[in-house]
């Protein structure tokens, strides 16, 4: 295993009773890569992600995230990753600055670090005059961009994004991806799920889960070529239609 690998999974498995949610998946994610993690509802994406984030112990196989073991070093994993989802991101009843201070505080960042970086971040987001406003008063697009910035505020090596752009308008969706590119350019590994197939095109590599297994993993270009598909949407349809198990 080299220093250039952010995530490594080998035969990673999760069984719930006699149901195998994740069925021996193996893959590697390089540092600084934007890795798209696709699959139909119920294919096992969330369960796999929970194991990689140190929130659920596997029942088989092995994996390391940022060099830490998913069985024994879950606390270290949590400290070294960022996480953001469409459903839960920021506290609506806290202000923008309070949210930043809260999350950075959880990760043990110093007051000086928080102060300096908060000012920088608000400037970057053009939100200098919004710092003392409640998050619930912000438009959705701003919230999502802020949530992403908060998820990488403690400068993790890897950030997990679970459908970060669901329901976001098309202009903001592109601004959001621009932020993802910048984070990756700064060396942060991005592990992202999405239902927008155009976004699959923006990933360096894409894996597609079907019935708990990874059925395909490659660059978007190579996936389209090997499956003789015109678009990633077609790639997804060709693979996901083979699924036999029911959605979550």
């Amino acid at each position: 295993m080299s220093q250039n690998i952010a995530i490594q999974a080998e035969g990673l498995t999760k069984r719930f009773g006699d149901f195998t949610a994740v069925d021996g998946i193996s893959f590697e994610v390089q540092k600084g890569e934007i890795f798209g993690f696709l699959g139909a509802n119920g294919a096992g994406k969330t369960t796999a992600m929970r194991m990689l984030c140190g929130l659920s112990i596997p029942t088989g196989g092995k994996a390391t995230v940022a060099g830490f073991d998913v069985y024994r070093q879950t606390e270290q994993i949590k400290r070294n990753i960022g996480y953001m989802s469409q459903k839960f991101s920021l506290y609506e009843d806290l202000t923008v600055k309070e949210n930043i201070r809260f999350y950075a505080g959880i990760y043990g960042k110093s007051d000086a670090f928080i102060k300096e970086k908060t000012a920088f971040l608000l400037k970057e987001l053009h939100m200098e005059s919004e710092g003392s406003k409640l998050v619930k008063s912000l438009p959705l697009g701003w919230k999502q961009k802020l949530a992403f910035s908060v998820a990488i505020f403690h400068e993790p090596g890897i950030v997990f994004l679970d459908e970060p752009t669901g329901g976001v308008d098309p202009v903001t969706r592109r601004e959001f991806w621009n932020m993802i590119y910048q984070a990756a350019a700064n060396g942060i590994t991005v592990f992202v799920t999405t239902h927008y197939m155009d976004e699959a095109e923006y990933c360096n590599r894409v894996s597609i889960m079907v019935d708990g297994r990874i059925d395909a993993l490659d660059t978007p270009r190579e996936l389209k070529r090997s499956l003789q598909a015109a678009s990633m949407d077609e790639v997804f349809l060709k693979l996901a239609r083979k699924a036999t198990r029911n959605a979550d």
Partner: protein
Amino acid sequence: MPAVVAENIVKRYGKKKDIVEALHGISFQAEQGELFGIIGPDGAGKTSLFRILTTLLLPDGGHATVDGLDVVKDFKQIRNRVGYMPGKFSLYQDLTVAENMEFFATIFNTSIDENYDLVKDIYSQIEPFKDRRAGKLSGGMKQKLALSCALIHRPSILFLDEPTTGVDSVSRKEFWEMLRKLKQQGITILVSTPYMDEASLCDRVALVQSGKLLSVDTPAGVRAAFGKPLLAVRAEKMLPLLNDLKGSGAVADAYPFGEYHHAVMRGNHDITELRQYLEQKGHQQVEIKAVEPDIEDCFMDLMKN
């Protein structure tokens, strides 16, 4: 008589200093038997609009009719005629599939048997699980049950609030197939969605953003109104390509669009010139082609202008 008429609908939330205007005067009509899409991102006001039209919320301005009936005065009659599937799963989780169906049939003074032909295609897929509690169903099955319950009293108009949000693209296609079959049975369907690609499956669409209508037209009409030349451009290095496209005087706007970037061109553009410009900037394997605008191109154009 149109199935739905909305005239200058306004909705505000909050009090005094803290007022948010969710709908700023929305006007449109949906015809009988039409599959009408309300397309827009979260926060556009789609749910407020649906709740006003289904008589669950009072407008603060304007008026609306559903099947010719006023949404404020005639709310009781409207409730008998519309089916409403909210964005959030709202059936009784502790009742079984069959009990939920019976419950909704009973409150509308009908029975499952009476309207079975209408729901058969959808309900038969979950009938094998009819003794399972609704809370224990998979996402896809919950959706089918919710749709069956919204249909069991044979409504003349069906309101579906974001039925496909968070649903993968295979299941989304299956759901739209179900809608197409329902439409054939003569039911008017108003459906809201944040997914721009679903617009092309509707007879007509209303594009909404921040409580305002950007456009109401057929999908083809929306695309025809774009009115500017559009190019799809690809090269080896996509990120620098985007910046160089934005830096070109011939390009009015450029943004990523799947495996290509889309470049909205100013009037008299020349593909050869653009290619030379990009190659001078050091881009390799430059591919440029003229394309028809997608609904998403149109939506962004309307948002920005």
